[in-house]
């Protein structure tokens, strides 16, 4: 798995390419930590369009990012979760608490709203 970060307006979009599992979850967490340390308070959006597989370690990293983003007041969204990853989110009921948007455009829109509100 690798992450590719690009700027889109005020937000930074982290495209995840490959499986987010027990071996690669630390890489995603590291990308978040780098963002929080160097680019806050710009919004952080994780784009899962190119991810087919997610496990509990990956879900756990999303929960950690959510808690950290709230503490640091950094807007955070996840988008394009589909297939198996979406099913896992539903099974674990994490879709109730994680800030999941259906598309990147929707996530960018939410990020802009949060920026205006601030």
């Amino acid at each position, binding site marked *: 798995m690798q992450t590719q970060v690009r700027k889109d307006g005020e937000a930074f979009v982290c495209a995840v390419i490959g499986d987010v599992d027990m071996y690669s979850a630390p890489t995603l967490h590291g990308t978040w930590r780098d963002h929080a340390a160097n680019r806050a308070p710009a919004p952080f959006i994780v784009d899962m369009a190119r991810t087919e597989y*997610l*496990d509990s370690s990956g879900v*756990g*990293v999303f929960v950690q990012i959510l808690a950290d983003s709230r503490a640091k007041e950094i807007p955070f969204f996840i988008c394009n979760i589909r297939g198996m990853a979406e099913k*896992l989110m539903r099974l674990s009921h994490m879709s109730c608490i994680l800030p999941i948007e259906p598309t990147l455009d929707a996530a960018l829109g939410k990020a802009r709203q949060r920026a205006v509100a601030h």
Partner: protein
Amino acid sequence: MAGNDELLIDDTHELFSRNDMDYAVFSSDYLQIRYYTLLLIQRSRPKTDERLLLEQQVSEIIKNAVKHGNGCDASKEIKVWYRFTDAEARLIVEDEGPGFRDLEKWNLFNRKRREFLDRGDYTGLMSYVSWRTDRSDAYDGGNALFAALEYWNRGVVYSSGRNAVAVGKVFPRGLMDADGDE
């Protein structure tokens, strides 16, 4: 089929029957967990998304045995009995560890989590999204068993020694890939 309410302890549960199940033994090599999982499920035929979900669910159980049961000690083994057909998935995994001593605490934790979910109180739910113990590390999601209880619709049952777990799932009709993918 609805999910289960809690983890059970029952050596006599039907999910612990090893009749007609295949058997494998693996060393506790953390880096091989997904490989072991693929070996086990290679003859299963759910459609793509469901196959990946089956892989993930099996992988979590293998990971628990390798990491939390055997402490990734390569000299320790995990024993696996498994059966995957078009109708069902069954798995029994036994490790050499001390067993899931906090099982009752986990059930209590999950009961509280369910209460917040049922009330739609997602703020309160935030305190119950990750089960942590003093042995948890940063990348133990602490959420695998929540999904397991929902996924394994025949139950998640531990042995009285708590170092073996048996799970089962009945697949809904229409879930299998007609062409197979063996």
